[in-house]
């Protein structure tokens, strides 16, 4: 599901660049795991590692015990943040299989200056 979503972002990357929006993926994966995923799937936008769930916890996005061996991981979530650091759009899906579509996010890009 996540891969399906991330692949959609990569496919629309030219449109995101044109709209001046930088997609950034964040998970508990180590930089090494992210590097392998990026190489394997051909992702070219930044992937950040929050292995200790510091940011995930501060943003209240922890899905407790849902990871490998009962590790805490991030629940799926998207935030569109403008250049002043203000949140302009959020998507906290209620269903693991339902994700924001790139065109939906790009549509929100006109909220930004």
């Amino acid at each position, binding site marked *: *599901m*996540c*891969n*399906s979503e991330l*692949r*959609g*972002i990569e496919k629309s990357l030219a449109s995101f660049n044109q*709209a*001046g*929006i*930088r*997609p*950034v*993926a*964040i*998970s*508990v994966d180590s*930089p090494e*795991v*992210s*590097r392998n*995923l*990026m190489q394997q799937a051909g992702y070219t936008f*930044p992937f*950040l*590692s*929050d292995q200790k769930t510091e*940011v*995930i916890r501060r*943003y*209240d*996005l922890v*899905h407790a015990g*849902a*990871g*490998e061996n009962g590790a805490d*991981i*991030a*629940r*799926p*979530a*998207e935030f*569109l*943040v*403008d*250049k002043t*650091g*203000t*949140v*302009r*759009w*959020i998507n906290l899906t*209620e269903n*693991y*299989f*339902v*994700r924001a*579509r790139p065109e939906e996010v790009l549509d929100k*890009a006109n909220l*930004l200056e």
Partner: protein
Amino acid sequence: MNARQINWPLWAGVLLTLIAGFSYIAVFVWFPITRDFPWVNLLMFAVAAVFLWLGLRRGFSRDRAHPTRSKIITSLVTTFSVLVIALFLLSYFVFARWLPPSTGAPQVGQKIPEFTLPDSTGRQVSLNELLTAPIDGKAPKGVLLIFYRGYW
């Protein structure tokens, strides 16, 4: 056993059930239109259910060459198929909704808390840097933060 004796609707039903279940993960999850609601798979399950019903009737009809064996096989295959369908429905409609409410997440209009995290090369990257580093030579208008579960 001649061809007339083969309970083909039953076997078509179980085969279609398995295809309907696995094709969501293998194929349809990659396209938002079939991912966000699994209508293709639900349609396949509906057709499979018709075949299973016909197979059930055929398996329990009186003109079977081996009535007891036919009833046992038909019962097992139908039960298995129903379990596969139930597991799929539970996964999509129930288990997939077991997500934390995240009521404390940053809201629209709020300043999002600053952070610094390592990227895939191990370099420390701050939100401020992501918001200011140029895209194609121009200042960005914003950043889309995508939190995902990880573990592939």
